[in-house]
């Protein structure tokens, strides 16, 4: 069964460092998303990506964040200068159509720890 894969599963980084979280969405999907979940809290939307550009972003997704689809398969989230409060589980998701029509398939997440 096709699945969304994320690497690495766990990343530890020093405060102020840049991190890149990687995702391989399901191959025929058109919509891509990043969410985060701080420990014990709810899943929060960061950004959606369609047709090679950002279609929506939340207030959390400030200038420190960027997304890219560098080739036909990878989808990355970059955090330029990490802060302690960026520590969270980051989930990538993809869907074949818009979220109001169909389900989103989530990856297993990357646990980011900023020290």
């Amino acid at each position, binding site marked *: 069964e096709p699945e*969304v894969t994320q690497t690495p599963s766990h990343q530890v980084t020093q405060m102020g460092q840049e991190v890149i979280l990687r995702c391989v969405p399901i191959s025929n999907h058109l919509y891509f*998303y990043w969410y985060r979940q701080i420990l014990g*809290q*709810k*899943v*929060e*939307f960061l950004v*959606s990506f369609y047709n090679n550009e950002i279609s*929506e972003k939340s207030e959390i997704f400030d200038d420190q964040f960027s997304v890219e689809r560098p080739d036909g398969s990878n989808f990355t989230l970059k955090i330029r200068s990490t802060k302690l409060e960026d520590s969270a*589980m980051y*989930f990538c*998701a993809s869907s074949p159509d*818009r*979220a*109001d029509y*169909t*389900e*989103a*398939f*989530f*990856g*297993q*997440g990357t*646990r980011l720890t900023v020290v």
Partner: protein
Amino acid sequence: SQKIEQNSEALNIQEGKTATLTCNYTNYSPAYLQWYRQDPGRGPVFLLLIRENEKEKRKERLKVTFDTTLKQSLFHITASQPADSATYLCALGGHASGGSYIPTFGRGTSLIVHP
């Protein structure tokens, strides 16, 4: 601002009984509602989607109702099994024409099914 409320207390039930989880929302008129299952340390897994013009949806042992007057969705698992133990998340999204269709998640309710 919009609010999505799910019971923060865990629901404990005996195997074989029906589990009923509640999702209430305020200051919002969602176009659709989704339910996801999340196991510890893993990404959400989609279960069901129901639209504003639908009252009820079923899938195997799962049933979802959507009451836009009460601003509430109920999620039922019949003949529950210990393997159903997980956190269940509801997510609501708006009309694409009126703004964001991206689903906003509630905090989830933990279900524990005892053998």
